[in-house]
């Protein structure tokens, strides 16, 4: 077993169990276990949840892979691919090495909600076993950069 990885909240808001995400792909942990955050409405800066390399960067989602090869997916809102980047501004580039807490994307959560989409943000331990994740805060308030879950 490798060392547990502490995964930070990429945005501030209200922590939720992944099962409450209104998208079965995330709620049923099809791509991995994790946690979710319902953001405050307004401009939000999403940060890297771990130190590593940004291997995928979409306007609405990103994956950071750690030195030990673990990938964490941050998905900003549900069905937000349909916005084609409107309301999202990239602050980093694919391939960048980032520290945990480095700003990656600025987005307007109020605009996402006004468009009828959920701004809930799943944070996923990609391809991890279902029991590998222990959340620090199953519910309640989290800030960007605070500890969200441990990946065993």
């Amino acid at each position, binding site marked *: 077993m490798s060392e547990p990885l502490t995964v930070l909240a990429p945005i501030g808001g209200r922590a939720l169990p992944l099962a409450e995400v209104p998208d*079965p*792909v995330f709620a*049923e942990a*099809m*791509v991995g276990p994790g946690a979710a955050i319902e953001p405050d409405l307004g401009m939000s800066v999403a940060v890297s949840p771990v130190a590593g390399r940004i*291997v*995928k960067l*979409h306007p*609405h*989602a990103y*994956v950071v892979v750690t030195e030990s090869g673990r*990938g964490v*997916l941050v*998905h900003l809102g549900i069905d937000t*691919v349909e916005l084609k980047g409107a309301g999202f501004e990239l602050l980093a580039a694919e391939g960048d090495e980032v520290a945990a807490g480095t700003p990656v994307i600025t987005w307007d959560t109020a605009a996402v909600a006004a468009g009828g989409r959920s701004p809930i943000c799943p944070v996923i331990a*990609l*391809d991890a076993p279902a029991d590998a994740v222990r959340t620090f805060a199953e519910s309640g308030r989290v800030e960007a950069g605070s500890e969200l879950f441990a990946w065993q």
Partner: protein
Amino acid sequence: MGKAEDIVAGLGGADNIIEIEPCATRLRTDVRDASLVNDAALKKAGAHGVMRAGAAIQVIVGPEADTLASDIEDLLE
């Protein structure tokens, strides 16, 4: 066969695919005949799951969706 070929076959072949678009975790595709889509074959090809809404099929493949989609686009041309 490669993964892209396997997914095209699982979706009922190139002629069955009207459109395919990646998002962060999945391939979103519209097919002509949803009955030709083989969930078991798609899972064997490496999909984590398949979601259906009529002829709109989502194949859950994880973050490699964008590279797989461009491989599949190449096969469809």
